């Protein structure tokens, strides 16, 4: 079985081409409850990342110290953990993942939810079909 998702196509302005974004809808779970979000599949990200204010909604506890992170401007991050549930049709998977909580500079727009490799992308065989704007995710059962 495999789960299939569509890219989101976004128009920006008349001078630039639309952006096609490989994102999927998932449910994030923390001590304060679940939140449904759309997250960006990012094979270049070592692990999943969410902005600080979303971590507050979920009630996540920080387990690591603040550290600089590359790729998101001047932001800093701190490690925590959460669960992610991804579903499509009758197929559903719930994963416990490490997550980097992103602290953005005061007044800055918070970054999107990043669904990265450790704990999440590494649980699937994923095909990005850019021409057909389609993502296919095949579950990889844990190695014994």
């Amino acid at each position: 079985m495999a789960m299939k998702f569509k890219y989101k196509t976004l128009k920006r302005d008349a001078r630039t081409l639309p952006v096609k974004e490989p994102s999927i809808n998932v449910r994030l779970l923390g001590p304060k409850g679940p939140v449904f979000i759309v997250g960006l599949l990012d094979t270049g990200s070592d692990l999943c990342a969410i902005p600080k204010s979303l971590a507050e909604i979920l009630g996540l506890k920080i387990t690591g110290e603040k550290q600089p992170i590359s790729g998101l401007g001047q932001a800093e991050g701190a490690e925590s953990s959460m669960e992610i549930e991804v579903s499509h049709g009758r197929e559903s998977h719930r994963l416990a993942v490490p997550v980097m909580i992103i602290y953005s500079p005061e007044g800055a727009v918070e970054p999107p939810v990043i669904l990265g490799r450790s704990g999440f992308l590494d649980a699937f065989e994923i095909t990005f079909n850019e021409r057909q704007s389609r993502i296919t995710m095949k579950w990889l059962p844990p190695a014994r």
Partner: protein
Amino acid sequence: MSGVAKAYQYYLNADFSQYLGKWVAIVDEKVLASGPTAKGAYDEAAKKADPSKILLTRIHSKQMMIL
């Protein structure tokens, strides 16, 4: 995902160009709140609708994203 299935379909098909770079909270086929932070959008939407029906996302910004 049944509680937000309609909101996700709306997200995929609707034009969000007026929300570039913002967090939006969608319920069914409507954007209930938007802003610079996830919690701001979520809290405002939660005053108007059942939180279990809220789909949160950040809309791509005007700039091309290269990480």
